[in-house]
């Protein structure tokens, strides 16, 4: 699955996107985030405060308990500050 990071998540992880194969049994986008947090120090740092992270699945905002389903693009980012 294509995984994207934005703003300080991108900076902390050190990349903007990557392909990730989540372990079988990864049901929700929140569980996917918990898996990523285990991939190394930089990921642990990026996801140290999971409750503030916003998640988009196929370019739509979703809550953390949203099922991954058959989506192709998963994105993580801080609260938005546009406008």
């Amino acid at each position: 699955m294509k995984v994207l990071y934005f703003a300080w998540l991108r900076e902390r992880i050190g990349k903007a996107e990557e392909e990730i194969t989540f372990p079988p049994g990864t049901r929700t986008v929140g569980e996917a985030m918990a898996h990523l947090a285990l991939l190394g120090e930089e990921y642990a740092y990026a996801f140290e405060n999971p409750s503030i992270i916003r998640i988009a699945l196929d370019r739509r905002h979703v809550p953390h308990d949203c099922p991954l389903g058959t989506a192709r693009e998963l994105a993580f980012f801080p609260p938005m500050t546009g406008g």
Partner: protein
Amino acid sequence: MVVPLVRVQAETFDPAAESRRITQGRTDIGAVVTFTGLCRSEGGSLAALELEHYPGMAEDELLRVAGEALSRWPLQGVTILHRFGRIAPGDDIVLVVTASAHRRAAFESADFLMDYLKTRAPFWKKEHPVCGEPGGWVAAKTADDQAAGRW
């Protein structure tokens, strides 16, 4: 059937041209509101803002927000333009234009669009100070969430 115009671009924009695009050749519009959001220098301490966005999703969310306004107010036109990249103090960041037969709908929907896009559109601002290292990411404001909650 009103089709909203949404654009995410590095270039600056022309609010007057965007208004004209909506009103030109029509005689059923009584009120046009434009909102322009500009980059402030924060008392001279800011050299520039850098605006990151999520390409694809940014346009989609702006369209959704515009569609939400169209479903709530009787509008004859809605335009949202949002810039990305490096933006200097005094330069435009965002433009919202709404047009309606009546002024209340034009005012309320423009106000709504700004509140809504602030909390929904995937853009992030990084501050580049005049002195020192490229600085922090701007923190989201609770006030923005509360403002969006009014609607």
